[in-house]
Structures are given as structure tokens and as C-alpha cells.
């Protein structure tokens, strides 16, 4: 029997007992449907994270901090040469890290692969105000050249420009007194800053863009480099030089085209000098790991359903083998090899798996589309751009193939029984 005939026979055999095949297929459909939805949720959320990554930080950029001392055996010994900085940690706990000094920055610049090092300036603004209106509290975010903002309108703050430019989050536009996002672009806003001596001063900046709401940086105003430097200069008035020149972290730029190994080598070199380097991918990676773990658990439930369906296949095919004992005996008497008989029945199982997974995946995609539409207008309306259930062809293909694989495994038990059948025993009728 050639391959085409084998497949054709397997398909027509599985359709011979329609009710039984349909029931088995339903069991697989349930599993495939669940698996499609759960993995779709994983794909959707991860894709959303990927699109927002660009606004968290640029590629080819690494945030460097000094390595925290191991504090498992009591408090850290005081080092008079270093400056300790309080860094916000989890609620109720502040971490003290040693600050990065200009000397450290020079040292980091010497590491091979480092293109440039900039101290990241922690800037605070007391308020933001427009045209004498209400003053609103404002968090100042950092903008690293190369990072891209999710803009609702306007342009990104120009880091090369000497003018003071700022991007406002869209949630600030109306409270500040603008009629629309477009209206805000081009106007001048005032940022209130208090320096170390307690004196309040105001810095003027031009609004060049409005950022869309996303998972991240939705409530931070984003200044350009010139404005950041100015704000830092203003707020540092009255500080000792050592305090002014102490930074919680520095930003290292490296070749964007670097491979993972090169990045790892760079991190290792930094670690030797006593610094920790974290790329955006590392930060996002932690986020994604959690989502992947949740999706994995959900997928686990779907796979349990599929394993149960697998036993359904075993049962169906065992019945089929039983019913077709004489047909198998006849085929073997007529010279069909055991291998081909095995192939015939395992292909039948694979076909049942294909039917079930195909229907299940299609239903899952339909349901996913419906869920997206419903949620986009309801529960998730506050997160524009989030498609909760997304499908990529590769993972859908993997689901179908994996289920066909499970079906094949389930089919081996009945197929082996059929292949080993003794033709004489099967044809005995005396």
C-alpha cells in the first residue's frame, strides 16, 4: 500500500463510524480550544509588553549600578570613600547602595564594548503648571536617546536640542487647561523645583509631544537632555559637590547589534569591576517570565484535557480494531505487512487528532476574537492597544502538530494490537 492510499484508507475508515469518531473529536476539540485560548492570552500579553518596551528604554542601553554587598552576615562595613544612597525598594524597605561617582564612570568607559557612559540624573519636579492654572504633582521620567515614546501626538523631546523640551502624558492635557492633545503641543509649561536650600524656582519648558497611555510611563513627564540637566542643576543648588556628583545609576550605551553573548561578556566585565548591568530585555524578561509561568499553568490544564481525550482515542481505535478484526486478517493474508497495518491505524488516530485540533483551534480563534471585542469595550477599555488574546501562526501550528502527536501516541496501542494480529486467528470461523 503506498502512502497516499494509506492516508486515504485511514481517513475513510475513521469516517466509517461517524458518531464514535465525532464524540472522540469533541473531546479533542475541548482540549485544543482551551490550549488555543490560553496560549493566545500569553501571546497577546507578551506582544503588548513588546510594543511598550520601546517606551521603557532603548536597545543597546544598559543601566549600571554598583553591586550590592552581601548582607547576609550582618550590616555592611562603612566605606568612607563611597557615598551611600537610599534607593526606593519594596514598600517598607529602602535599600542602600553605593553611589556611582565620576571616577566610576571613567572606569566604566574603559570597559571594552562600552560606547559611552552617562550618569542618570534623578530629577524631581514639585509641580507642573500651564498659564497660571492649577498646579499638578509631576513625576519626571528619564529619556535616553534612542528610546522611543508611544506618542499620541507631536514629537519626541529632542535630546540634541539646547532648548528645554518636554513630553506630557495625555492624562495631564485637559487638567492643565488644554483643549486637546494638539493644542498642548508648542505651548510653554512651568515646572516647579525646590533646591537643597529650600528655595523654590521655576523652569520653563516647551511641550513638543503628548504620550499615549500605556502600561509604563503613563504618568511621567518626559524632559529632553537639556531640560534634565537644567532641572538637576536647579535642584542641586546648595549640595556639596560629592553629593551632587553621586548618582544612583549610570546608563551605558553599547552596540545595538551586539549578540546575547557579547552583552553577557560586557556584563561580566562590569561585574569584575563591581557593577551590575541590567538591560531593558532583562527588566522585561522578568515581567515576561511571570506571564509565561501563568500561561504555562493554564496550558497545563488544557494538556490534562488533551491527555483525557487521548484515552478517548485509544478507546475508539480499540473498538475499531475489534470490529475490523476480519478485515485486518484479510489484508494481512493478502500480503499487507504488519508495519503498514500499524501505519493504517496510527494514521487514523492522527487524522482524528487533526480533525479535533483543527476544529478546536478555529473555535478558539473565533472565541478569542469575540472576547477581544467585548473586553476592548469593557474591562480593558483603559488599556488601549492591548489585544488580550492574540494568535501567531507558529504557536497555532505547534498546537495542531502537538495534538496530532498526542493522537499518534494514543493510536500506537490499538495500532500495535492490529499489526500483531494473526491472520488465521482473525479469519477463523470453523
Amino acid at each position, binding site marked *: 500500500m*503506498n502512502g497516499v492510499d494509506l492516508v486515504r*484508507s485511514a481517513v475513510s475508515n475513521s469516517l*466509517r463510524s461517524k458518531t464514535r469518531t465525532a464524540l472522540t473529536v469533541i473531546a479533542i476539540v475541548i482540549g485544543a480550544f482551551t490550549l488555543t485560548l490560553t496560549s493566545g492570552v500569553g501571546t497577546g500579553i507578551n506582544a503588548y509588553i513588546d510594543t511598550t518596551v520601546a517606551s521603557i528604554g532603548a536597545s543597546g542601553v544598559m543601566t549600571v549600578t554598583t553591586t550590592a554587598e552581601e548582607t547576609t552576615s550582618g550590616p555592611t562595613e562603612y566605606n568612607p570613600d563611597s557615598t551611600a544612597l537610599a534607593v526606593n525598594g519594596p514598600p517598607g524597605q529602602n535599600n542602600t547602595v553605593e553611589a556611582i561617582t565620576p571616577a566610576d564612570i571613567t572606569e566604566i568607559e574603559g570597559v571594552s564594548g562600552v560606547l559611552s557612559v552617562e550618569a542618570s540624573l534623578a530629577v524631581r519636579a514639585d509641580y507642573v503648571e500651564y498659564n497660571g492654572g492649577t498646579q499638578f504633582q509631576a513625576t519626571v521620567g528619564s529619556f535616553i536617546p534612542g528610546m522611543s515614546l508611544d506618542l499620541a501626538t507631536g514629537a519626541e523631546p529632542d535630546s540634541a536640542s539646547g532648548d528645554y523640551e518636554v513630553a506630557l502624558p495625555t492624562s495631564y492635557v485637559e487638567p492643565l487647561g488644554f483643549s486637546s492633545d494638539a493644542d498642548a503641543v508648542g505651548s510653554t509649561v512651568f515646572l516647579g523645583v525646590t533646591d537643597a536650600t529650600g528655595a523654590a524656582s521655576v523652569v520653563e519648558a516647551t511641550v513638543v509631544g503628548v504620550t499615549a497611555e500605556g502600561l509604563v510611563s503613563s504618568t511621567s513627564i518626559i524632559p529632553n537632555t537639556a531640560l534634565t540637566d537644567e532641572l538637576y542643576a536647579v535642584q542641586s543648588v546648595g549640595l556639596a559637590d560629592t553629593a551632587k556628583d553621586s548618582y544612583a545609576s549610570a546608563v551605558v550605551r553599547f552596540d545595538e547589534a551586539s549578540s546575547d553573548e557579547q552583552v553577557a561578556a560586557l556584563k561580566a566585565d562590569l561585574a569584575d569591576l563591581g557593577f551590575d548591568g541590567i538591560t531593558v530585555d532583562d527588566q522585561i524578561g522578568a515581567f515576561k517570565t511571570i506571564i509565561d509561568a501563568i500561561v504555562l499553568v493554564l496550558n497545563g490544564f488544557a494538556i490534562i484535557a488533551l491527555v483525557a481525550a487521548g484515552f478517548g482515542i485509544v478507546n475508539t481505535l480499540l473498538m475499531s480494531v475489534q470490529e475490523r478484526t476480519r478485515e485486518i*486478517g*484479510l*489484508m494481512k493474508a*493478502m500480503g499487507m505487512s504488519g508495519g503498514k497495518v500499524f501505519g493504517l491505524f496510527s494514521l487514523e488516530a492522527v487524522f482524528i487528532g487533526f480533525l479535533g485540533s483543527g476544529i478546536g483551534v478555529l473555535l478558539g480563534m473565533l472565541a478569542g476574537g469575540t472576547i477581544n471585542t467585548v473586553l476592548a469595550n469593557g474591562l480593558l477599555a483603559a488599556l488601549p492597544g492591548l489585544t488580550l488574546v492574540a494568535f501567531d501562526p507558529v504557536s497555532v501550528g505547534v498546537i495542531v502538530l502537538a495534538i496530532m502527536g498526542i493522537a499518534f501516541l494514543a493510536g500506537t496501542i490499538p495500532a500495535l494490537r492490529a499489526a500483531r494480529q494473526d491472520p488465521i486467528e482473525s479469519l477463523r*470461523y470453523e
Partner: protein
Amino acid sequence: MPVPILAARDISKSYGRGATRFDALRGVSLDIVQGESIAIVGKSGSGKSTLMHLLALLDKPSVGSVELSGRDAASLSGSLLNTTRNSTFGFVFQQFFLTPGASVLDNVTLPLRIAGIRGAERKRRGMAALEQLELADKAKNKATDLSGGQKQRVVIARALVNDPSVIFADEPTGNLDSATGAVVEDILFDLNRSRGITLIIVTHDEDLAARCDRRVYIRDGLIVDHLGTPATAGPAASITSGAHA
């Protein structure tokens, strides 16, 4: 004397062991030459079906050997045995063993499908076999919709479709009334005469056996009598029996 197409050399076959041991055959020797018709006659449980299964290479003897054109079948590989059964042998069973849902043509071309012959060629040869048995108009019918006589003709068409040199017929008329049975017998003996197909018929029907060139009587696993001479070749002396009762 020509090399027999099939030969049994003092074969025994037993099933089980110890107290439950059952000897189906207890030393049988038989030469079958190309083109003859031979009836293996015996009662139920005499061992005649076992002998046919061994000659058809469906089973291996416990003792002794079966020779196919002078070669010991035990020396042939599994795939060669399969090919031999597929292309050299045709099978006609008392219970038709037709696949119920499939069309008559699909049933007839089963051996060709197993042989891996492609669709168009398969259909051509299947239709030729059906025409020979005057069933061409039933090709598209389901096998279950036919009468008993038609079914047995479909089975003969299936046995013929691979152009075999030996047809094994196990009680070919057992399920048919005498009129249709006679028609089926005529078809089988006509094939034997006109195309030189060796006919090995297992039966307990004396009338059917009487139409064969030779009759071998089996009782309790032994050949107890043989009558007639091969039509094409060889003296009766070529028939030997392991042990007379």
C-alpha cells in the same frame, strides 16, 4: 517431473502444550503441480483448514517444511512471504470478508491497493476482473447490497485481480444455495482450465470434490486417502502420505 508449485514435506502442526496440546496435523506430505485442481476433503476439525493455511504460507509448520517452487518457505523473508501471498495467491473464503461500507470495486482492488499499484491502473484491472465475472454494472454498489452469489463472485474477482497462479478456496460454496453454488463452481473450474490457475479447494462437499482432478482425504491430521491424478503432469506416485491410518 516438473517442480511442484507447492509441496508439503512431512508437516505437523500442533497448538498449545502439555495437557492442552492439540495436534492439528500429524505428518502430511503433498505435492501440488501448476495447473491442477485439488480438493482437500475432510470433516470439521480434521485439519484440512490448517493444511490450507500452511500451504498458503499464512502459518509455519511445527515440524517439516512447505516448499514454494522447490524453495523452503522457512528460508523466505517476511516481506517476500507477503509479496508472494499478494501476487501469487488468490483467496476465496466461505464467509466473503467483504468490507461492508466500501464499493464493490474497492473491495475487488484491495490486493492491488496492498501491492501499492496506482489508482488508474488499479481501476482498469479491477473493472477487467469484474467484467470477467459479469459484475461490471455493480462496480459502484456497496458490497452489502449484493446477493450471496454476487458476493461470492466479487470475492472471486478479488482473488483474480492480481492474476495469481494459485487460488485457495475454503468452502467456496458453503454459504450458497445449490444453484448459485454450481455457478460459482463453474467459474472456478473454468479459470482452472482456461487460464491454468492452480485450484486448491478445501471442502467437505463430495460433489464439489468430485469435480477436481485430485482429492485428498484428511482425518485426524493425516491423509487417509487420495484419488485421481493431476491433469497436467506427474504420476499419482508423487502423492505421498506421511502415515496411513
